[in-house]
C-alpha cells in the first residue's frame, strides 16, 4: 500500500520576477518501507519536492495523499501537528538544537508528542545505540563531529517511528567515510524498523546504495528505477 502518493503535483514560485516552475505534474507513489533516493541536477526540484511531501510548503496545484489523506487541504495548525505525528525530518546540516544534549535532541520530538518520560528515555537510548552513539548520550552537538551530528539527527527523525522520513541531502556536508557510515545506518534502520525513507542527493556514491532512484530534471520525473539488492 502506498504511504505517499502525489497526483499532478505542481509548484510554481511566483515571488520572483519570472515565475519559476519548480515541479511540473509529478505523479509518484511510495510504498511502506521503501528506501528511495531523489537525484537530479542542481535546481531540478529535489528540495521543492521534499518540502511539499513534508507539508512545509503548499503546492500550486495537485494533491499529496499521505495514507490516503490529502494534506494540501490542511490548515497550518493541523499541518504542524501532522508533521509532528507522522513525518521525520533530517536536514542538510545544523539539524540539532545546540543547547540540548544528544539524548535530549532525540527525546525532543517524543516530548512534543507527549509520550511518557520512561518510554521516551528508553527509546532514545535504544536508537542512539543503534546509530552507534550509545556512549555519547550526554554530548552537546558542538562536541560531536559533523557525521555524528547527522547520526543524531537521523536518530531523532526515526525515534518516534514516523510514517516516513524525509532527508534533504543529509550527506552533503560529510566526508566520504562519514557519508557511507550515515547511509549504512539509514539503511539498517529502514530495514529493521521498516520506516519509509526518502532522501535527496547529488552524490553518485550515495545513489548506489538506494533501492529506488527517482531522477528529476527541470521539475519533472525523468527516471524511476527500482533495484533488487
Amino acid at each position, binding site marked *: 500500500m502506498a504511504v505517499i502518493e502525489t497526483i499532478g503535483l505542481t509548484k510554481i514560485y511566483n515571488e520572483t520576477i519570472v515565475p519559476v516552475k519548480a515541479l511540473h505534474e509529478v505523479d509518484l507513489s511510495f510504498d511502506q518501507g521503501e528506501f528511495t533516493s531523489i537525484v537530479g541536477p542542481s535546481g531540478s526540484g529535489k528540495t521543492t519536492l521534499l518540502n511539499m511531501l513534508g507539508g*512545509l*510548503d503548499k503546492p500550486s496545484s495537485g494533491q499529496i495523499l499521505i495514507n490516503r489523506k490529502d494534506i494540501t487541504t490542511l490548515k497550518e*495548525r493541523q499541518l504542524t*501537528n501532522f508533521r509532528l505525528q507522522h*513525518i521525520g525530518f533530517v*536536514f542538510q546540516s545544523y539539524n540539532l*538544537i545546540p543547547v540540548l544534549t544528544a539524548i535530549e535532541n532525540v527525546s525532543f520530538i517524543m516530548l*512534543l508528542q507527549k509520550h511518557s518520560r520512561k518510554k521516551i528515555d528508553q527509546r532514545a537510548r535504544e536508537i542512539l545505540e543503534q546509530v552507534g552513539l550509545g556512549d555519547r548520550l550526554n554530548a552537546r552537538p558542538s562536541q560531536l563531529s559533523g557525521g555524528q551530528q547527522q547520526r543524531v539527527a537521523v536518530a531523532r527523525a526515526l525515534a518516534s517511528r514516523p510514517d516516513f522520513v524525509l532527508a534533504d541531502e543529509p550527506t552533503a556536508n560529510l566526508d566520504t567515510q562519514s557519508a557511507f557510515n550515515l547511509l549504512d545506518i539509514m539503511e539498517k534502520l529502514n530495514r529493521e524498523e521498516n520506516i519509509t525513507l526518502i532522501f535527496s542527493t547529488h552524490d553518485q556514491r550515495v545513489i548506489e546504495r538506494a533501492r529506488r532512484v527517482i531522477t528529476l530534471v527541470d521539475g519533472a520525473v525523468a527516471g524511476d528505477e527500482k533495484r533488487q539488492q
Partner: protein
Amino acid sequence: MKLLITLAWRNLWRNKRRTLITASSVFFAVILALIAESMIKGSHEAMINNMVKLSTGYIQLQDSLYEDEPSVDHAFMFDNSVKQIMQQNSHIAYIVPRFESYMLAATDQATRPVMLRGVDFEAENLLNATSHKLIAGSLLDKTDQSVLLAEGLAQRLKMQVGDSIILVGQGFRGMSAAGIFPVKGIVKISLPRLNDRLIYMPLAATQQLFGAEERLTALLITPQDLTQTDKLAQELRAKFDPKWFKVLSWKQMMPSLLQSLKLDRASGMLIIYMLYLVVGFGILGTVLTMMLERQREFGILLSVGMKRGQLALITFVETVFISLIGVAAGLIGGLPILVYMHHHPIRFGKEMEAMFEAYGMEAVMPFALDTEVFSSQAIVVLLITLIIGLYPVLKVFRMNILKAARN
C-alpha cells in the same frame, strides 16, 4: 512545559557574556532608579513633614464651618466627647490643640496684621520642636499671659524681649479681643511665611483673650503611622457628626503643596523613565540578535512539529528571564545601598546648609526606605520587559518556516 522552560533557560546561557551584559544593564538601571526614586520620595517626605508640622498638622479636626470661613466664631468645644474619641483610637500618636486667629498688632511706631497661635507647648513640641528655635528671652509657661514673637515679625515691628505688644481683634461671637502683652521671647520659625507674622501665646491665655474658653479652632492629630494618614482621617470622619465637625488631611488643607510635589515627582519620574527607555532598547537589541542568530534553529523546530505558540513562549520566557535576573539582582543590590543612605544621608555643604535651615530642614538629602520604592521599580521594569517580550512572539508567529530553515 518543562521542556520549553529548559530550552529557554539554556538558550540564555548560550552566550553568557551577552546575557550578563544585558542583565547587568537592567541591574544598574534598577539600582539607579531605586536611588533616584528613594531620593525623590525621601526629600518629599521631608518637605511634607516640615510643611505639615509647622502649618496644618497631618490631620485636623475643625468645626464644620471653619474651613470655608476661618473665623473664631467657628471654634468648636474641645469637650470630653471629643477627647474620648481621640483617646479611644489607637492609631493616633498624639494630638495638638490650637486656637488661631489673625489680629492686628500695634506698637508705638507701627501696626501689622499677625497670626496669633494659642498653643499647648508640650503638645506643640511633640509635633515641631525643631522648627522654632528660641533666639532671645525664654519660652512660655502654661499659665503665662505673655507672648513669643517670630523673629521676622519682631524685626519688622522693631521689638525686643521685654517690650509690650498690643493685640486687637474680633473675639468669640461679637466679643472684642484686645490686650497688651509682654514679649517674653523671640523664636526663629523655619517657614519664612510664618516667621514674618506668627505670635505664640499659651492656649489658656488665648482662649481667655477671645472669650472662648474650652474652644479650639483646630485640633491637630498625628497618626502613629504617617503613611496611614488618609486612612486614619477616614476613620475619624466616621466618628464625628459632619453637621458639626470636619476632619481634614493635609492633602485637603494644602492642595497646592500636593500639586507641586506631584509635579516635582513627575519630572523626577521622567528621568527614571528615560533611563528605562535606554535599558529597554538594550534588551530589545539583545532579543533581536538572539532572534536573528537562531532563524535556522527556529525553522527546524517549526519544521519538525513544534507549535508556533510553543516557540513564541520560549522566546518570551527568555526575555523575561533576562530581565528577572537583572531586576532581582538590582533589588538585592539596591537594598543595602538604600539602607545605608537612609541612615547616612548625604550632607550638603555650608552654603546649602543656610538655605535648608531657612526652611527648617536638615541640610541633608534624605533617602526614603519603603517597600513601595522597590515594588514600583520592579513593576515598571517587568512591564517594559513584557512589552519587549512581545516582539519575538510576533516574529515567531509571522516567521516563514522555509525561509528560516534555509538561513
